[in-house]
């Protein structure tokens, strides 16, 4: 049963790894090795519990497992594995997970070497004083090149990797060596169970039965059920109802003390009340200060989500509300578009986050959606001195009132094999990037660019993948808002401005973007009973025009006494196709057209 461990026998650690470098498989091995689950319970890759995550091979919510490991020294250690999300959109969550650890395994695919996100997360770990233990995974692959991978780790990350553990999560090779290294090289936690409580919220999620569950790392003090907790960022108090650990099954415990990782349930109903990075202390004996590093996370990318059929609006709101229960970073508020009707403007941490939300709405809630092109948040300084945030290009004030538009700039770190450096640089330049640094690390080059986020949200990831044949990896962080000569590009269909298609572009790119966009729209809009004019305009100035020529005819050549069902099916298919389109004026516009900007020059 739950036995008490003194701090000397506790190790708190995370795994830093690039997507598909084998983090989940490795975690499964640990759980299996330490008997955390019976074989029957051991469904492959238990840590990535959401179906979607499993398909994409990414972890979105951090989860944890408390593992009991009998080491070669004969003693039993409690190893707390704290899972970390593996994507650039979730770097804040990663930093909080790392803040809860004393050590981290740096897992590198022995055949592929170091990737940008791994590096960024590893730097975060080193900055926070976390001990990094390098592991070379997939050592069983014929293409494995451990020496090169070691050289790369040393060169890029700057840590000693001579003793990097060679392992294969797939075959089980080296698993015990890793567990031994965790015991030997990662320091035990510090802290005093008798000090005032400081517990870091690593993650929180909504459970239908108990409300919000918080995953915490207790840094100082002790938390017991019935304690009155104080959340330091908001000042709210809650009664602690239950504490416990995940093995990875949940297991109640009488208390959580300094050095330990576990869950807290306290009847909180809204996820916003249990923010990742916040500090829990006790109301009657509070800590002097919260733990450092808490940040309020703000969505960086916005898009309009509209139901294809207007009567699905309420269903969409319900679905978003349910999703938000488990995703505090998702924001949404009602929005009306002349073209698309009633929908929601949604804010996301980044593009992947947006993709995930969209897919979950479609898959889990069976929603049929039209998504507008993603946009960033602009700061607009008006001539009267007021500063406003604009999340939707259609809401951009009249240019005559604008003194300055500021756009978000990111610092992007790109890792790419030498052969593709030229192509990546060309891409960054075409996206208004400014090069800040370039370093050679063995086979790889690390490029640092400042890029407008506006250019990145559209199609940068896809382009980066395609120009580097999938080898480039990217990490980015917000840098600052910077004034830019941005203009609003409108799309007119048969003379009607379609609000949902407006987008912000840099004046220098406006002509080209406009031409490309209307050309793409012409391809996407099917021929109809009349000519359809597609125009791009800046203000009242038309900069590009294409025409979708009218369909010449649409008639079945033959119809006699034979099979009516087949003809009927054909027309039903035609009708269903139109139903999935949006009517703008009298023009039927397919859903893809609202994302045409993402497909421009993907030739």
């Amino acid at each position, binding site marked *: 049963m739950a036995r008490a461990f003194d701090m000397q026998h506790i190790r708190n650690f995370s795994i830093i790894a690039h997507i598909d470098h084998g983090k989940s498989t490795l975690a499964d091995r640990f759980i299996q090795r330490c008997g955390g689950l019976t074989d029957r319970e051991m469904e492959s890759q238990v840590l990535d519990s959401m179906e979607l995550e499993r398909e994409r091979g990414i972890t979105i919510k951090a989860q944890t497992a408390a593992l009991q490991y009998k080491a070669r020294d004969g003693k039993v250690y409690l190893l707390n594995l704290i899972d970390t999300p593996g994507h650039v959109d979730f770097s804040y969550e990663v930093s909080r997970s790392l803040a809860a650890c004393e050590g981290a395994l740096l897992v590198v695919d022995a055949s592929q070497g170091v990737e940008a996100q791994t590096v960024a997360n590893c730097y975060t770990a080193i900055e926070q004083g976390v001990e990094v233990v390098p592991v070379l995974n997939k050592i069983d692959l014929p293409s494995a090149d451990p020496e090169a991978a070691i050289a790369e780790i040393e060169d890029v990350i700057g840590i000693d990797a001579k003793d990097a553990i060679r392992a294969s999560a797939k075959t089980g090779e080296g698993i015990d060596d890793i567990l031994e290294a965790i015991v030997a090289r990662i320091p035990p936690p510090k802290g005093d169970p008798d000090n005032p409580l400081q517990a870091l919220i690593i993650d929180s999620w909504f459970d239908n039965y108990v409300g919000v569950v918080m995953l915490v790392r207790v840094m100082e003090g002790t938390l017991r059920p019935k304690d009155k907790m104080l959340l330091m960022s908001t000042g709210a108090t809650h009664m602690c109802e239950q504490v416990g650990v995940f093995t990875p099954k949940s297991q109640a415990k009488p208390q959580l003390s300094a050095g330990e990782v576990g869950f807290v349930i306290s009847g909180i109903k809204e996820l916003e009340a249990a923010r990742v990075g916040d500090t829990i202390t006790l109301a009657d004996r509070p800590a002097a200060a919260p733990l450092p590093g808490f940040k309020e996370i703000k969505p960086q990318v916005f898009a309009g989500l509209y139901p294809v059929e207007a009567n699905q609006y309420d269903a969409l709101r319900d679905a978003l509300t349910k999703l938000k229960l488990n995703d505090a970073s998702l924001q949404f508020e009602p929005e009306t578009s002349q073209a698309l009707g009633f929908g929601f403007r949604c804010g996301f941490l980044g593009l992947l986050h947006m993709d995930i939300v969209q897919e979950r709405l479609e898959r889990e809630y069976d929603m049929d959606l039209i998504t507008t092109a993603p946009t960033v948040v602009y700061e607009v300084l008006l001539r009267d001195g007021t500063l406003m945030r604009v999340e939707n290009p259609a809401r951009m004030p009249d240019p005559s009132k604008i003194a300055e538009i500021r756009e978000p700039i990111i610092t992007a770190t790109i890792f790419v094999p030498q052969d593709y450096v030229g192509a990546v640089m060309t891409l960054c330049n075409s996206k208004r990037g400014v090069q800040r640094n370039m370093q050679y690390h063995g086979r790889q080059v690390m490029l640092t660019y400042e890029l407008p986020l506006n250019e990145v949200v559209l199609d940068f990831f896809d382009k980066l993948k395609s120009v580097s044949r999938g080898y480039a990896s990217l990490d980015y962080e917000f840098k600052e808002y910077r004034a830019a000569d941005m203009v609003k590009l409108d799309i007119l269909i048969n003379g009607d401005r379609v609000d949902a298609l407006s987008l912000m572009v840099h004046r220098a790119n406006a002509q080209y973007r406009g031409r490309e966009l209307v050309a793409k729209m012409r391809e996407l809009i099917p021929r109809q009973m009349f000519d359809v004019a597609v125009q791009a305009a800046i203000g009242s100035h038309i900069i590009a025009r294409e025409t979708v020529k009218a369909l010449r005819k*649409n008639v079945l050549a033959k119809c006699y*006494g034979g099979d*009516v069902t087949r003809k*009927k099916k054909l027309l039903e298919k*035609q*009708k269903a196709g139109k139903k999935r389109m949006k009517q703008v004026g009298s023009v039927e516009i397919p859903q893809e057209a609202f994302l045409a900007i993402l497909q421009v020059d993907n030739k």
Partner: protein
Amino acid sequence: MAHVVPIEAALRGIRLNSLPPLSLYVHLPWCARKCPYCDFNSHPTRLAIPETEYAQALVADLEQALPQIWGRRVYSIFFGGGTPSLFSAATIEFLLAAFRARLPLAPDVEVTLEANPGSAEAQKFEDYRAAGVNRLSIGIQSFNDRHLAALGRIHDSGEARRAIEIAQRHFDNYNLDLMYALPGQSVEEALADVRTAIATCAPHLSCYHLTLEPGTPFHENPPPVPDEDAAAEIHDAVVAELEASGYSHYEVSAYAKPGRLCRHNLNYWLFGDYLGIGAGAHSKLSFHDRIVREVRHRLPKTYIERAAAGDAVAERREVTRKELPFEFMLNALRLHEGFAVQHFTDCTGLPLAVIERPLREAEARGLIERTHTHIRPSARGRRYLNDLLELFLADD
């Protein structure tokens, strides 16, 4: 006993005060070779066709169907295929005699037989006439050998011309089938075909835009047919040429000299009834409280066996009240003259009010023209007939 409204009939809500005209369709499913564009129920054969057996199956089939059409007069008979002209005139004569003995035929019944213009077939034309066939429909398709080859036809243009000459000697009423928008065809070539057909003074022409139907070799491996715009140019030129040459363009693909409209097909388009006998044949039959569709067994061998066993029908289903308006429109809106409002009610047993909404929508979009007694597709509605018909599809 008190008069009770049958509940089922009331729910179905169909009540026909009179039954529409009845036609007889006879499917003869064999072909010498299957054409790559053909999606009809046809079966290529190199062996002798079991004519006698099949003819007996048809008669048995008809006899089983008689109770459903008891006492109703038949206004037209159509032998379709396949290639009916592979059958001997004697068999056709036997069949017509069998029909006459069992069905009250109208005195001026139209009896059409589809024929291939091959020389072997053309020799039989005279005998078909003697057997009682009074209208031929000849599958010319094109007078251009290159295009005939591309269509996989087994006749050439010389045979086509000779077949027409022979037909003219024995039939005053006949139809030529033509196709356009053929692989590699220019506007001029299509017009040349049409002009040749017009020059024969044929009483009726059917000109079809070649369609690559799903399930055909052409659909799997599309030939280089003209693109949408080029095909539309051809279409417009063909229509203009025919309309300027004394033909009335009375249906999407049908053109007739005055008084020579095809009665059998007109009955389909006016949502009349038809009994279809033979392998894979479709029927549509009305009763005072319901409308039924039937399909015969598709494979000739199965059909022959099942018909002999008194079980020729493979599928039978009632057309629901919801489906009726679309099925009516699918046919009636193909006609340039459209239909009389009263006719809709007569044939479907439904008030016009059930389609008032789509009718208004169609009118607003300029797809139909209507008076209080008559509804017909506008020129625009004829051009975009599928978009017009779509309005009458019931929402699931």
